[in-house]
């Protein structure tokens, strides 16, 4: 028996969410009195692979196959399911990234497993079943979901489980799965990066702008604030609909759901569909000139004022703070 996790890499480097997942898998394995095993697909150096040991992985299966260079969910799902059988894993965990969310349901179907998507906490064991908490109704509720199948698959929301150092000696093994030509029908032709900035679903801090900012030419101060904080930028739906900002920045019910430690909303009214994607942020700061804006009801801190006055002041206040704490 073991707990298998998929260690997703980005150009040969593991993302922070992968180490969060390693911590999570190690904690689930400890509940089970078993080991956390990683599976890595693609060209990742041994030293990078061994970093997974820092967060509790005892064993890493490394798949380095020319055909699996770019992501094809059907082929990757088959590899991960084979790794689960190879390691007798009864629990398979993935990050709820775009990639993890594409893979997990396929793996569940292959393993005849129940699947909880978007877990936000550790499972609670009850005999052979587990109960896992996840968000539902677009941030308006939590659901505790019980899986009663023998095999179980869980995906974990990035930034919802703390990194836990648990230095473990890792053994790295090469793993050679079977690959079927039929699994490669969907082929990646090109990857277009909108920016090399902080990835929105993983960001610890998000600075977000709404229609209150009047036009795309005013995003300079939003970006400056974000750069200072090491934050990702986001926007409301009308802003991306008007092409002031790319669609990949749109958060909310029909956009990306985020749960950073800090969400700063500037000139956003706080419509229910917007809140649906951001309300699980740990701390919310709202800057809006209208004291009646509904967003203040969902905020921890607020400033009633004109963004064009407040943001430049906030930028200098943060500069001051950073030089004092450097």
């Amino acid at each position, binding site marked *: 028996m073991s707990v298998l996790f998929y260690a997703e890499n980005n150009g040969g480097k593991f993302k922070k969410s992968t180490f969060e997942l390693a911590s999570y898998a190690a904690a689930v394995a400890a509940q089970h009195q078993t080991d956390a095993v990683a599976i890595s697909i693609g060209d990742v150096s041994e030293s990078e692979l061994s970093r997974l040991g820092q967060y509790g992985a005892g064993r890493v299966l490394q798949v380095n196959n020319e055909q699996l260079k770019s992501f094809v969910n059907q082929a990757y799902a088959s590899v991960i399911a084979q790794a689960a059988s190879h390691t007798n894993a009864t629990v398979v965990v993935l990050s709820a990234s775009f990639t993890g969310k594409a893979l997990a*349901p396929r793996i569940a179907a292959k393993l005849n497993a129940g699947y909880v998507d978007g877990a936000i906490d550790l499972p609670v064991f009850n005999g052979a079943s587990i109960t896992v908490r996840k968000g539902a109704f677009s941030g308006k509720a939590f659901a505790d979901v019980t899986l009663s199948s023998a095999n179980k698959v869980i995906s974990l929301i990035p930034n919802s489980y703390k990194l836990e150092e648990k230095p473990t000696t890792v053994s790295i093994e090469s793993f050679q799965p079977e690959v079927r030509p039929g699994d490669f029908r969907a082929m990646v032709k090109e990857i277009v990066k909108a920016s090399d900035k902080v990835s929105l679903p993983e960001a610890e801090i998000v600075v977000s702008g709404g229609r209150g900012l009047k036009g795309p030419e005013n995003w300079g101060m939003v970006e400056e604030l974000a750069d200072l904080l090491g934050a990702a930028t986001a926007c409301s739906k009308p802003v991306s609909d008007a092409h002031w900002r790319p669609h990949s920045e749109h958060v909310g019910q029909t956009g990306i759901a985020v749960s950073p430690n800090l969400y700063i909303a500037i000139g956003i009214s706080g419509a229910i569909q917007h809140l649906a994607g951001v309300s699980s942020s740990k701390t919310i700061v709202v800057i809006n000139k209208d004291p009646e804006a509904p967003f203040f009801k969902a905020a921890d801190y607020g400033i009633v004022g004109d963004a064009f006055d407040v943001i430049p002041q906030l930028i200098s206040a943060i500069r001051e703070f950073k030089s004092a704490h450097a």
Partner: protein
Amino acid sequence: MKVLVCISNVPDTTTKITFNDDNKSLNINGVQFIINPYDEIALTRALELTEAQGGTVTVLHVGDSSTEPTLRKALAIGAHDAVRIDALPRDAFFVAMQISAYAKEQNYDLILTGRESIDYNGAQVSSMLAELLDLPSVNIVKSLQIEGGQASLEREIEGGKEVISCPLPLVASATEGMAEPRIPNMRGIMSARTKPLTVVPAVEVPVYQHIERLEKPAPRSSVKLVDATETVKLVGLLHQEAKVI
């Protein structure tokens, strides 16, 4: 081209959520149900493609008879016919098994779903269905073009997009950008009444997921307002009190 669009029936986006006494299910009293917004996008793209290249669009829903207005609305938007698999959806695997049992016999060229249902936000059915039918799938697709039996798709990824090419048949899950949802017109609404809606019995499937409990998030304590001239104080609070910077 034969296209299937899977439709989920969800509470309207502005619904105030309350639960039944056992806290295991949604209280549907007074709740307005709609076509899942992403499924509407998928449906519109399916119609655009078949209008340009010929073909039919079938909409399918797994649900009881109370959900038929949602299917009629899909017919009013322009789908040619509708199928309802007669079962309460128990979990995503159950739904995917029902759809695959039906779709196996039909030889669709293209199966579209939404990226996720806005009720349980599972994003599960699409990839499960593809796996059960042994078809390729692409998730969170914001652009879908089809030419000569070959699909070209753009999939959203962290901080960018992937351009993917794939032969038909395939399964794709739709997100914003794939199409602008259509609003049914009078003619559509009239003709929807006479379009075929077939009811199909469910197949026997195990259920792996149970909702143990639903709970609302604890309300945030009321907002701490800081004067517009006191941004330094806000930074201090974020550092010392919230400990986020």
